[in-house]
């Protein structure tokens, strides 16, 4: 360490010194994070030389640079750690959980010192003796004949470059091209004054083949290339650049407007190029602010390990979608909430290994982190397979602490009870641990997430585990979207909600009406339609003869949005709407289109709710309407017309129909002498109407036409021979003859049609259980 100078002397030398220290601090923090990550990985895969090298390099760099800057304590501690690691490198020491813990606590000590340097400029008087002791104990305890303090390997101390690429000697040893002791001898000669390069000495002494040296040098330079691929940029600078690009876009737009009156082809093509380049520049700058969520997640395995070791649990962490990108500001904002959640899951969620084994679970608990884009939002799900949340305990505690009255608590639904977990000051942990359970945490999580406009939802099954869902808006995120025009305005629809596009030509082709609600038959299923112009109260453009349907997914439902025009797909930058517009639920934000105009982004879920496509009470409403339909006779109604047997023309109110399906005859199975079919995870009984009503001439066809009738969550399939039509008219029911299963007859579409009494039919078929409470 001849080059090491005291820090103050360097600091005085020039202002640039601050930069060097800042750089060192940032690098050290990154290095320590990498150290943690790779050490944990190494614990799982102890044979990985690569991981071991990476861990070693991280500590070595801190020691080296710290030495240059004169941070003695940093050097002392990292030196002991390095010694332990080099013993692991030469194979005389195997990584055990104790060693890992000692090394991790060393990393923490280094972190503390680095923080102290960042805060005060000096190493401060952080107490770190315990750490060195622990490491020394590891060193001495492991080997029967402990060397005095293993002297630092000269090969590994000479570099002053902060981004240390692996040394040639290391590369050669790792690749088993050269024996470690020969490299050491060569390095010693270098130290003694040999001016030649290490490779030259090695070749000269015949320790290694010249080709091997060349190969080693190549590996080294590759590494240097990787190191120089990234640079650090201040976010404020990025923001500034982004604003400038915004201005450039406007200027570009003005230039493009001029091109309309210009005929100079040179100018036109230049303007065109300017247009393209600006667009790309804009996109590029936007993307610089995006970071994968993995950046935050990477710290979590360490936290989980520390905690699970601390409380004697075993927890496996799994991550999915770590490359899901989020805006940097959001990444920052969710860091702490995520840590809280993870702590809670390990501390309260996952049980002790013995408890797990006793209830037949794997001894090792599972913690799964999932992130994905959906509906213009980023979803983060954290699930564990632990004990779940004891709602009755939550209830008791909430009552005891006076959050709710006992009376109120009794009336609360399971879901409401679960949400008590977010109330400040509530924890069901029987023991307050040093990690969590002090009643702060989940409420902080909720407030922090809500602060950035997100939502938290908790689901828990006793004994099975807990699932925490976080939804965060994509503020500033870039998403692919479909641009549509309706009522003369452009709207962006997030691509994630988009299923398909349907275009029907001709007058209202294929669009039918169910009691005022338009539907479209999409491959045999009824797709409810929502008219964008009507829902958004936009001026109608008049029918152009064809209908554009954007099929969207909202929650577990699909619906078709009818728009005037479908334009194009584009990558859009989501910008939030001001708080004045929070009351408008059907927009998720706004974006600036390529031409500088502002377009609103549709919130598909909000729109679906507004148009009542999504409605929890839908099933209920359906059955209510069914009873109503049974009572009134001459009300205008939508009817499903079908044929059974040869000439049987029948109708049932469409409101009773949940779906129209086609099943191949081969899918029919039998249960208790009845034909059944597997439908949506249920066993659905089938009733062949022709048979049941005594019509002759039912054709045995390969494909069954089935009218699915649902009530109280159960379905019955009515097999008909042909679906004729759906019609909307007032049918006056006339009783001509008493037939139990026929309500009467009516004239529909100028023809006499039997009206089927479905409840009566089901009763006759001993299927009225389907009617449930209805009857």
């Amino acid at each position, binding site marked *: 360490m001849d080059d090491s100078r005291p820090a103050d002397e360097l600091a005085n030398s020039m202002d640039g010194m601050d930069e060097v220290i800042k750089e060192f601090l940032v690098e050290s923090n990154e290095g320590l994070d990498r150290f943690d990550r790779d050490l944990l990985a190494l614990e799982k895969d102890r044979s990985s030389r690569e991981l071991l090298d990476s861990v070693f390099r991280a500590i070595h760099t801190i020691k080296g640079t710290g030495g240059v800057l004169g941070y003695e304590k940093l050097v002392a501690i990292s030196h002991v750690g390095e010694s332990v690691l080099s013993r692991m490198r030469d194979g005389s020491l195997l990584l055990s959980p104790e060693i890992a813990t000692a090394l991790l606590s060393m990393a923490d000590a280094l972190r503390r010192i680095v923080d102290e340097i960042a805060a005060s400029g000096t190493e401060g008087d952080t107490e770190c003796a315990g750490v060195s002791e622990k490491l020394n104990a590891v060193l001495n305890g492991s080997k029967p004949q402990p060397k005095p303090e293993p002297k630092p390997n000269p090969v590994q101390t000479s570099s002053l470059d902060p981004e240390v690429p692996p040394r040639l000697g290391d590369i050669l040893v790792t690749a088993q091209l050269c024996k470690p002791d020969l490299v050491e001898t060569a390095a010693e000669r270098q130290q003694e004054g040999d001016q030649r390069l290490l490779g030259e000495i090695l070749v000269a002494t015949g320790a290694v083949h010249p080709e091997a040296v060349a190969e080693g040098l190549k590996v080294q330079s590759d590494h240097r290339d990787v190191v120089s691929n990234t640079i650090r940029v201040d976010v404020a600078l990025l923001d500034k650049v982004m604003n400038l690009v915004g201005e450039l876009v*406007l200027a570009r737009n003005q230039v493009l407007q001029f091109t309309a009156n210009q005929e100079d082809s040179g100018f036109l093509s230049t303007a065109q190029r300017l247009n393209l380049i600006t667009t790309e520049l804009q996109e590029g700058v936007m993307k610089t602010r995006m970071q994968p969520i993995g950046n935050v997640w990477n710290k979590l395995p360490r936290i989980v390990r520390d905690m699970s070791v601390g409380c004697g649990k075993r927890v496996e962490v799994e991550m999915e979608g770590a490359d899901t990108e989020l805006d940097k500001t959001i990444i920052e904002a969710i860091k702490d909430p995520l840590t809280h959640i993870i702590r809670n899951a390990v501390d309260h969620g996952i049980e002790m290994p013995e408890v797990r084994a006793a209830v037949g679970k794997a001894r090792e608990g599972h913690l799964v982190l999932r992130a994905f884009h959906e509906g213009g939002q980023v979803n983060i799900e954290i699930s564990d397979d632990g004990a779940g949340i004891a709602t009755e305990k939550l209830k008791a505690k909430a009552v005891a602490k006076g959050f709710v009255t006992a009376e109120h608590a009794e009336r609360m639904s399971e879901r409401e009870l679960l949400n008590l977990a977010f109330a400040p000051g509530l924890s069901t942990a029987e023991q307050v641990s040093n990690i969590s359970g002090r009643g702060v945490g989940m409420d902080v999580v909720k407030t922090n997430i809500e602060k950035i406009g997100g939502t938290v939802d908790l689901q828990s099954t006793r004994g099975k585990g807990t699932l925490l869902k976080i939804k965060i808006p994509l503020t500033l995120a870039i998403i692919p979207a479909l641009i549509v025009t309706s009522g003369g305005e452009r709207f962006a629809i997030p691509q994630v909600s988009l299923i398909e596009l349907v275009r029907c030509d001709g007058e209202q082709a294929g669009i039918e009406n169910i009691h005022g609600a338009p539907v479209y038959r999409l491959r045999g299923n009824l797709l409810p339609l929502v008219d964008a112009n009507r829902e958004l*109260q936009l001026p109608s453009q008049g029918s152009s003869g064809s209908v554009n349907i954007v099929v969207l997914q909202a929650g577990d439902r699909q619906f078709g949005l009818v728009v005037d025009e479908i334009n194009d797909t584009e990558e859009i930058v989501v*910008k939030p709407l*001001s708080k004045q*517009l929070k009351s408008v639920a*059907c927009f998720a934000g706004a974006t600036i289109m390529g031409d500088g105009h502002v377009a609103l982004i549709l919130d598909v879920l909000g729109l679906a709710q507004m148009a009542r496509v999504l409605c929890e009470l839908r099933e209920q409403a359906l059955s209510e309407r069914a009873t109503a339909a049974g009572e009134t006779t001459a009300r205008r109604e939508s009817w499903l017309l079908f044929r059974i047997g040869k000439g049987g023309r029948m109708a049932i109110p469409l409101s009773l129909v949940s779906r129209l399906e086609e099943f191949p005859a081969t899918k029919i199975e039998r249960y208790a002498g009845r034909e059944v079919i597997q439908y949506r995870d249920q066993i659905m009984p089938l009733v062949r109407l022709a048979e049941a009503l005594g019509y002759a001439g039912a054709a045995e066809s390969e494909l069954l036409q089935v009218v699915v009738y649902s009530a109280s969550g159960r379905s019955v399939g009515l097999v008909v021979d042909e679906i004729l039509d759906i019609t909307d008219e007032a049918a006056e029911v006339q009783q001509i003859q008493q037939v139990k299963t026929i309500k009467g007859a009516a004239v529909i579409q100028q023809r006499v049609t039997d009206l089927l009494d479905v409840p009566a039919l089901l009763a006759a078929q001993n299927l009225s259980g389907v009617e449930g409470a209805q009857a």
Partner: protein
Amino acid sequence: MNRRRQLCTFFLQDLYFGVEVEKVQEVIRYQEMTRIPLAPEVIAGLINLRGQIVTAIDLRRQLELTARPAGQLPMNVVVRRDDGPISLLVDEIGDVVEVEEESFENPPDTLEPRRRDFIRGVYKLKDKLLLLLETEKAVSVAGAHAA
């Protein structure tokens, strides 16, 4: 000692208004606007202010004045807010006027309470009255805070 303050002034129908200069980010002429379906009536739309999306509030609507005659394009007074700028649509922009605190008076009690909310006070200028706009109220939209 006279305390003076500078007001950025504008016209709305026959009223002469002022906003503290330090609250105004900029004044720009008519910008193309994107209407927001289903939004409260006072919100005229969104404008693109150099890459930033800004909500525009029609002050005529906000103050329950008559609608702006067709063909007359409003101007934007962009005011600074903690949560981003908001544009106020006005008929015409006036000068930046220096007023003396002595000439300030509270709005008369006879002013309808609903309108009074928008006017913090009156500066008595030589030839006319300059109304000081309550910006806080001017940018708030009924029902928007419910969430």
